[in-house]
């Protein structure tokens, strides 16, 4: 799966990427990470509060930093 972290490099985005990487390795899936920092691109996903989490082009979370376990719950149904 392709995971995109939306956000302009703020502390929240770094935290989101960290917990997402944790969740991904806990699930044992193959994921490619990509950072989206361009505001136009962020807005075109419909996200108005950063950070945002996009999995395979679908926004799954925006506006807050979840825990690694919450991300795992979000990602689990999307795997395979």
């Amino acid at each position, binding site marked *: 799966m392709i995971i995109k972290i939306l956000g302009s490099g703020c502390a929240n985005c770094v935290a989101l990427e960290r917990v997402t990487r944790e969740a991904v390795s806990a699930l044992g899936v193959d994921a490619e990470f990509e950072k989206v920092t361009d*505001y136009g691109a962020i807005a075109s996903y419909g996200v108005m509060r950063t950070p945002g989490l996009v999995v395979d082009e679908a926004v799954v979370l925006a506006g807050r930093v979840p825990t690694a376990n919450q991300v795992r719950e979000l990602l689990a149904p999307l795997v395979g």
Partner: protein
Amino acid sequence: MSVAERLRARTPVRRWVGLGVATVVWFALYEVNLPIWDWAVYRVVGLDPASQLGSGVHFFFYDSIKIILLLVGIIFAVTVLRSFMSVERTRALLGGKREGVGNVMAAGLGVVTPFCSCSAVPAFIGFVAAGVPLGVTLSFLIASPLVNEVAIALLFGMFGIGPTALYIGAGLVIAVVAGFTLGRLKLERWVEPFVFETRLGGQVIDSTVGLTWDDRIQMGVEEVATILRKIWPYLLVGIGLGAVIHGWAPADFFTRYAGAGNPFAVLIAVGIGIPLYSNAAGIMPLVQALHDKGLPMGTLLAFMMAVVALSLPEMILLRRVLKPPLIATFIAVTGLGIIAVGYLFNAILPS
């Protein structure tokens, strides 16, 4: 098991009991705060209440605890209430509204919508690209930092309901009038073109749908922790400076230069406040100390509004979507509104 999981697994009954106990503890701490520091600073340590050191040290400890308690209480309550709103819902409410009505709604929604100025740029693009008029969007962006829960909590704790209500009313009026004026000026050509070209894709995730009370309380607790972690350095510096002014500054030092006798005081206060970046938590202890030294309320509120509503870092962020002439106009119109409010308060409030 993580903390979040353990909290989630708890039954709602225990969550409510926990909330009840926390409320009782909060009120108890608030009540004993003054007697405890009276006792500790003046009796145990033996400092003289009339001395500069005594009153400065007492001010520092008593004020720190009081401010932290107020912040915890109000941030929690506001976050739980705001969990019923979202930026997405606000945008839907503002879509298709005419200017005027739209400005009034945007200012009001700016107060109740959970929003951090770090998201100002994506929200700006999201609003404008969805067809919300520029002036209405700016009303939202002015009201949101100006009338915020931290400012309200601190004003209420230090000056009571009167000045707090005035501040909220004035903040809303500034946001409405400044946004409306900016909308009338037809400044769209100074918005970066890509904003209008952005196509909004994807389905919109409204993060507030399907929250339980348990989730909302959890969000309140997390928000208190997040905000306190973010603002404590400002708070400490602010209270420290406040304590120094409180204990050591000569009584007539500030009134001589910035008192009611100086007709330019508000102008100067706003001029100093605009580039300054702090938040209400850092400014309020200073405001209180300066008020104790006899500075008029209007000057102080104008200073505080200038600090929280306009700042250099926020303007640098907004530069991504707004061209310099629009940013300058934005600062000028909002600044003028704040200056007008300062003079108005000075004229009607007894100092």
